[in-house]
């Protein structure tokens, strides 16, 4: 008998039913949702231009309120993969796609949005500024051959600095990254040992060091761990007030990564930019050019699956190529040369709707 008394708790059952019903209703509401009026675009990829893209998206939302652009910085490799899988409306990458990849994704247009510099940010005890590095030194550090901060190879470049006798820990990207690609394009170009060893790509087999996810992750690790060095986009270094190394360029000069020196390295390639805009601009000529710079791209399918989304995306990119460029400088990205903007606008004309008819 006591069982009945204990178990038959009607009020509790009703509560139980109510909670269940609430959940179902909640889920139903979620599925019903608001659709219609607004166009939402999902993009994913490079972490390199992420601060700039969020700025553009916020500014663009003020100009045309109906469009919500959700950009997630997962890494350039992710941008290429997810564009190919068609899980996103646009991808972003600092590494141009290969012909094979473009074919697999059934036609992709590369729109450069800005120029960034990959800088070597460091956190070394007793050295707050003024570190000089050469290509050999960087390759040595990342190959694991230079193990200590007071290694002769670093010392000769920095006779005035009090380098500690502490082990170097190098930080690299653990995700598929275009920043890695730009950095390694440079290392492969200047260091035969690197080209023969790990080579270049969005993710490679690293001989040593720590892996961190995204430019954010590398910056966070260098910032928090003493005696580390890592390669990140200039904007991340400036925003986080991190020390960055001067690099020896092709002309043999030590150059600090700045907006100007980045622009200069792009200028060295003037007239050599192909029409499809896929180009690597590392190790540029010129005395003032910073050697590790690169375009970052937004990738979109030539044939858009959805006309409305395609139109919204092209409109956003045209904004980025024109008014958007003025925000680049304030966030420490170099704006595009006029030649590149012109070529990019022409590429945008090629985008078609699902039926193959041009959008404009």
């Amino acid at each position: 008998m006591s069982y009945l008394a204990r178990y038959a708790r009607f009020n509790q059952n009703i509560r139980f039913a109510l909670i269940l019903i609430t959940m179902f209703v909640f889920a139903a509401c979620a599925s019903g949702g608001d659709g219609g009026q607004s166009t939402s675009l999902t993009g994913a990829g490079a972490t390199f231009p992420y601060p700039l893209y969020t700025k553009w998206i916020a500014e663009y939302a003020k100009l045309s309120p109906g469009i919500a652009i959700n950009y997630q910085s997962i890494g350039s490799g992710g941008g290429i993969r997810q564009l190919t899988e068609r899980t996103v409306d646009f991808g972003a990458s600092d590494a141009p796609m290969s012909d094979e990849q473009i074919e697999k994704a059934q036609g992709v247009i590369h729109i450069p949005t800005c120029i960034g510099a990959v800088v070597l940010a460091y956190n070394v005890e007793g050295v707050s500024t003024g570190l000089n590095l050469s290509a050999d030194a960087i390759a040595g550090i990342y190959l694991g051959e230079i193990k200590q901060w007071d290694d002769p190879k670093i010392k000769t470049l920095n006779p005035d600095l009090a380098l500690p006798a502490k082990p170097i820990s190098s930080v690299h990207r653990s995700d598929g990254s275009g920043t890695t690609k730009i950095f390694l394009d440079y290392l492969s170009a200047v260091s035969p040992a690197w080209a023969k060893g790990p080579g270049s790509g969005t993710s490679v087999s690293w001989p040593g060091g720590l892996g961190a996810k995204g430019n954010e992750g590398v910056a966070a690790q260098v910032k928090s761990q003493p005696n580390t060095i890592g390669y990140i986009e200039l904007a991340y270094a400036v925003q986080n007030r991190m020390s960055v190394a001067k690099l020896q360029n092709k002309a043999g000069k030590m150059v600090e990564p700045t907006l100007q020196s980045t622009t200069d390295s792009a200028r060295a390639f003037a007239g050599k930019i192909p029409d499809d805009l896929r180009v690597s601009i590392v190790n540029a000529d010129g005395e003032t050019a910073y050697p590790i710079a690169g375009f970052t791209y937004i990738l979109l399918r030539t044939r858009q699956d959805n006309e409305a989304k395609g139109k919204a995306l092209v409109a956003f990119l045209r904004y980025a190529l024109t008014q958007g460029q003025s925000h680049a400088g304030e966030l420490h990205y170099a704006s595009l040369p006029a030649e590149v903007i012109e070529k990019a606008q022409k590429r945008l004309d090629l985008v078609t709707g699902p039926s193959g008819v041009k959008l404009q």
Partner: protein
Amino acid sequence: MTTEAITLDSHSQSTKPPSDAASHLLHADFGERRRKWFSHFVVALCGVSAVVVLVPLASIFLYIINKGAPGLSLDFFTKLPTPVGVAGGGLSNAVLGTLTLIGIASAIGLPIGILAGVYVAEVGKGRVADLIRFFAEVLSGVPSITIGVFVYAVLVVPMKTFSAFAGGVSLAIIMIPTVARTTEELLRMVPSQLREASLALGVPQWKTSIFIVLRTAAPGILTGVMLGIARIAGETAPLLFTAFNNRFLSTRLDQPIASLPVQILTYATSPYAEWQQKAWTGAFVLVFVILILNLIARLGTRRQVGGAS
């Protein structure tokens, strides 16, 4: 001597007379000093390990409260995240997103879990039921990241979009075995007299199962459900590939959606101080909600007879 007394105390509930006798024997002090000291030593060691376990727990809570609580404000729940370097903003997208994901996961996982549990306990007998129990066990042991890979392959890639739905499904899969097992265990605990009484009155089996047995066990099942929800609320790994993330409020099933755990991950590993601050506050909110769910579930269990397994 006190520890011996305690030992006996804690085990004397079921069979009183023999333990009383034993305690008399013990108090007569037969043992050598060395044995006693060694015993005390081990007992102390066990006590120390209890303290050792509490240290990281205390540290985690202190940090979450110290760093997270100051960031709590209405804005945190009502505003969207701001671009890097712009002050203010909140994580309303993540808070709402987590709630939506839990809603979807519950809508999918609860019916499957509960009805499967009912089947195993009330309907299926023999090998079928054993087989289902076996597979539920298997499912409960699968790492959540593997479930993420699975849902990515079967839902995200074919649907050509990351979506709240895919996120909800992966959380539901994590939830199903827990709910099914709790349901089964609790239904088995319902005394058979109750069933027999109902059946003897001519009530069909299905009505008995639903309106007598299931309803009787409902409070206990609710406990299980809440523990299940508490578990999925903090899941991160499978959401990376399924629900993805979204800077905006989204209530659509076919769009990516934000969630607190993923947002905490993004912000925690970022170099920006204000983002890390938001991550601490997010962690505070998440842990707080999960603890409340656990607490309610446990208090509920205590009130009930033999609710816990």
